[in-house]
């Protein structure tokens, strides 16, 4: 962040934040792949693991505050997402959905945590990976349950439709299941995190620029920019949680759809 500020402070006018602000340099020049988002993703894995291992270690009937905190998140994913959506046999998918939710949520929230302040999911590579995993999981369980032929037949040929209509419907079905679902899943998450971070950058950096401007009016208006940035931070927090929820919910819905007996 400071790098930007100095960079732009030296410039002539205000340079609005752009997509380039998401391309952070490697931490050390020698290891090219070790960028901030990469580091954040690994940090999230460590944080999530430590938190949940500590909170679940005792597995007491009467939970401590820590156990209660971890358990609430787990129970939310297990009951409200996995059980309510998938129903029968949902326990098989709880570990995956739980990992998905905590992973996305933590990396999203990194976007508003001081010092970290970067949502890893605004780098499209991570949402892509998660969407690919979800894609593989729901197709795999569908094929496992119904067999390859029956599974594809159910997707491509909706029963109870006159034969010529399949020319219209089958491409839509196939496109939905194999292209649009993983694509929208990952792009929705990416775009929300990207736009949210960009918006925060605009107001915080804008406020900073105005504060350092020579004009008095600009200096006076700079606090408003900061205040709006702070208000947006709360809004962002909501969006970050919501997007983690939606990603997990859609994964559960796709799994439920692949397991359903008939369309």
């Amino acid at each position, binding site marked *: 962040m400071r790098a930007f500020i100095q960079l732009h402070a030296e410039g002539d006018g205000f340079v609005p934040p752009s997509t380039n602000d998401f*391309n952070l340099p490697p931490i050390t020049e020698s290891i090219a792949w070790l*960028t901030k988002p990469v580091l954040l993703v690994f940090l*999230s894995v460590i944080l*999530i693991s430590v938190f949940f291992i500590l909170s679940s270690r005792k*597995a007491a009937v009467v939970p401590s505050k820590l*156990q209660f905190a971890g358990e609430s998140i787990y129970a939310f994913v297990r009951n409200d997402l996995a059980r309510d959506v998938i129903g029968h046999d949902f326990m098989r998918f709880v570990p995956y959905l739980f990992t998905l939710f905590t992973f996305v949520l933590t990396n999203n929230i990194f976007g508003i945590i001081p010092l970290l302040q970067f949502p890893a999911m605004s*780098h499209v590579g991570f949402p*892509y*990976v998660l969407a690919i995993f979800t894609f593989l999981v729901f197709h795999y369980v569908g094929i496992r349950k119904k067999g390859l032929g029956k599974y594809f037949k159910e997707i491509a040929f909706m029963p109870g439709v006159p034969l010529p209509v399949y020319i219209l419907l089958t491409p839509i079905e196939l496109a939905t299941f194999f292209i649009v679902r993983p694509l929208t899943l990952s792009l929705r998450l*990416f775009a929300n995190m990207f736009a949210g971070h960009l918006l925060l950058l605009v107001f915080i950096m804008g406020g900073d620029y105005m504060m350092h401007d020579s004009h008095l009016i600009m200096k006076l208006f700079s606090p408003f920019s900061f205040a709006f940035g702070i208000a947006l931070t709360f809004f962002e927090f909501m969006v970050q949680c919501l997007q983690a929820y939606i990603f997990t919910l859609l994964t559960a819905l796709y799994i439920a759809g692949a397991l359903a007996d008939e369309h």
Partner: protein
Amino acid sequence: MRTFNFASEAEKVNPLVPHTAELVVGAIAFTLLFLVLRRAVVPMFEKAFTARTEAIQGGLERAEQAQLEAQRALVQYNEQLSSAQGEASKLREEARIQGAAILEDLRTKAQDEAARITAAAHSSIEAERQQAITSLRNEVGALAVELASKIVGEALDDQARQSRIVDRFIEDLEKSQK
């Protein structure tokens, strides 16, 4: 896919094209997290849930057991009560019957006694009367003989005749009495 762009290079980058490194790192990190959570966290939380369910269910079962026990005790108590009542009424009945029997016994005994006493009295009276009659007869006989001897002046030594006379006299006496 491209490798790396630094912020200092102000080239335009497409944010929809992923970094290869990020795909790899994302996959590894996610898999790692998945393994940790599946191995260490999910089973523990499930254990806690199961234990909690069992604790609640156990409590319910205990309560049910206690209720059942209370019910059984009540039934037992009622049974005991009714059997005690039956016993008591049986005893009462027995006592009543026994009392009646004793009373009956006593009455018959008293009646017997009374009858016996009456009979004894009767027989003693009869005996006395007989005695009286006999002695009276003897006395009257002796007197009459004496009187007649005196009157007749003849000794009625003949026993048979004497007694015949006495008998006729008494007969007359009896007749005159009636």
